[in-house]
């Protein structure tokens, strides 16, 4: 039952990793940008939630009403000011600019909040569990994160397929020049894509803050988990990120079951294993 439990917990953890991955996958799909600061943005959102809860006294989950719009606005401005000038030139400039943003965010958080690790108390929801079977407990919070991941990915799919914004995303992704001829302002479309990604990041950040303790240096690991989920799931497939997140989550919890030192390592090794046997991921959709 220990192993069943580890696998179930891993599947649920996959929901959180899918949330890390969805924002990354979205901006890669629209503008072929890989945002190295993605993990640091998640941690920044976690700190923002902490501040909002302290200042307003809102419930951590309710803090989303403030954190999500703020992060989205930040994402939009960051894209317009810093990233748009680098898009389309070469691989190097956007990558290195996001690397610079990552360094600034990490050290900015360190200067503001010190290196102490923090956690967001959410009034008991983080410890409440559902007893399914003897030896198999499902926490409310992991379950909520998993459901949230499904709802958010479904929502993103709807945005892509049903709205004019989604049409603009797809058009710009397919052929930025023709899209521009159709009166789509590329700079604005990219800004909106980053805003949407940052909104997902905000929710991921709030969940991260409730689930575990975090510190200013926690960002890079979140980036790597999100990235691994994207590659395992298959490029360009949002539902694939959920599958990738689940594979990664299960690998980590099963690894931790073997030996605590193996938790993260097992996840990385499964990532390389899948890269070796299925280089395009489990469910590839994009070339």
């Amino acid at each position, binding site marked *: 039952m220990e192993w069943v439990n580890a696998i179930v917990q891993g599947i649920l953890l996959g929901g959180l990793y899918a949330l890390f991955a969805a924002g990354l996958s979205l901006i890669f799909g629209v503008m072929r940008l890989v945002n190295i600061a993605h993990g640091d943005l998640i941690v920044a959102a976690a700190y923002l939630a902490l501040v909002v809860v302290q200042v307003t006294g809102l419930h951590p989950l309710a803090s989303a009403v403030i954190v999500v719009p703020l992060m989205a606005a930040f994402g939009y401005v960051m894209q317009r000011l810093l990233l748009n000038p680098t898009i389309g030139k070469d691989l190097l400039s956007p990558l*290195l600019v996001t690397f610079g943003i990552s360094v600034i965010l990490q050290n900015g958080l360190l200067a503001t909040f010190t290196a102490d690790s923090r956690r967001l108390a959410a009034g008991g929801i983080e410890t409440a569990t559902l007893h399914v079977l003897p030896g198999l407990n499902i926490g409310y919070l992991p379950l909520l994160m998993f459901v949230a991941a499904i709802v958010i990915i479904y929502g993103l799919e709807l945005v892509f397929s049903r709205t004019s914004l989604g049409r603009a995303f797809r058009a710009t992704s397919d052929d930025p020049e023709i899209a521009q001829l159709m009166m789509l302002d590329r700079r604005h479309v990219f800004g909106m894509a980053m805003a949407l990604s940052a909104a997902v990041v905000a929710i991921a950040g709030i969940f991260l803050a409730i689930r575990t303790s975090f510190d200013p240096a926690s960002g890079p690991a979140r980036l790597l988990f999100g990235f691994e989920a994207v590659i395992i799931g298959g490029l360009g497939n949002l539902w694939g990120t959920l599958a990738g997140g689940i594979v990664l989550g299960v690998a980590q919890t099963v690894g931790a079951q073997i030996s605590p030192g193996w938790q993260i390592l097992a996840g990385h090794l499964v990532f390389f294993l899948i890269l070796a046997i299925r280089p395009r991921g489990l469910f590839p959709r994009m070339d």
Partner: protein
Amino acid sequence: MAGFSIQRSTRTSRATALVALLVLAALVAAPWWAGRADLRLLGEIFSFLALATLWNLLAGYTGLVSVGQQAYVGFGGYALFALAMFLGVHPLLAIVIAGIAGALIAIPIAPLLFRLQGAYFAIGTWVLAEVFRLSFAQVSALGGGSGASLPAGVVTGIASERFVREAMIYWTALAIAVAALAFVILLLRSRTGLALTALRDSEIASESLGIGIWRTKLAVYVSVAGLTSATGAFIFLQKLRISPDAAFSVNDWTAYVIFIAVIGGIGTIEGPIIGTILFFLLRETLADLGTTYLMILGAVAILVMLRAPKGVWGIIAERTGWSLVPIRRRVVFPQ
């Protein structure tokens, strides 16, 4: 058809070669004119010069942008510790063996990483570095997560007299930096260098001309991994202490190195040299600021990428038309 010839050296490049020789001679003589602290600092400067030159060859000439070269720095460091502590290998010989081991381990890794395109390759290299860090943290013989110190006997084994020992360590650093620079310059002057330039400009066009993209990239990645491992071995010989977090630090061995290459000028030989000098000038003046210093580095790097993507050397070369290192080929027609 009029006969033409290919010219490589220019007047500035010949002058540079002369100046470089003089500077090198002065640097070789440093143990006699510089203090102990200066020698240590120079050793550190040479390590960063080597790392930045090698990273620049990957990112600026081969299109392999890595944010995970700390994998090889740390691997080299640990290899040196293992060789010196368990097998009693002479530390300077251990640096060479660490370099060879780093290149060997890169051979099976490269094909895996090459499956990731462009920017995803970058993050893949980072995952690799994390795998190395977490794996070495599991090795209890090397101190596990808390790390190990190099026994005093290993260091005194280099040479019993302190002056000779410190001079030898210093010359090793100089040799590594010169070797890295010479390797990059000679490679770029060779046929492979031409292939790399073609690859950078257009992969499809160069493949149609018969250039083996995959093989060329593999050769560069593996040799850079080897030289980076040797540099890493030296870095931790000088530090005398190693731990997984220090050995595989993304800040120390990648963020700083990228900063050096970016401000100096990516895709030029001169860039990393100028970048290293600027980086150490900044560090000696601003390092007391701590986190603010790192934020300034990040902001400067972003600003340079946005406003002057060719870096300081790019601006100088554009204004003056200088090319100090003769790697360009010019076609000269008789007048």
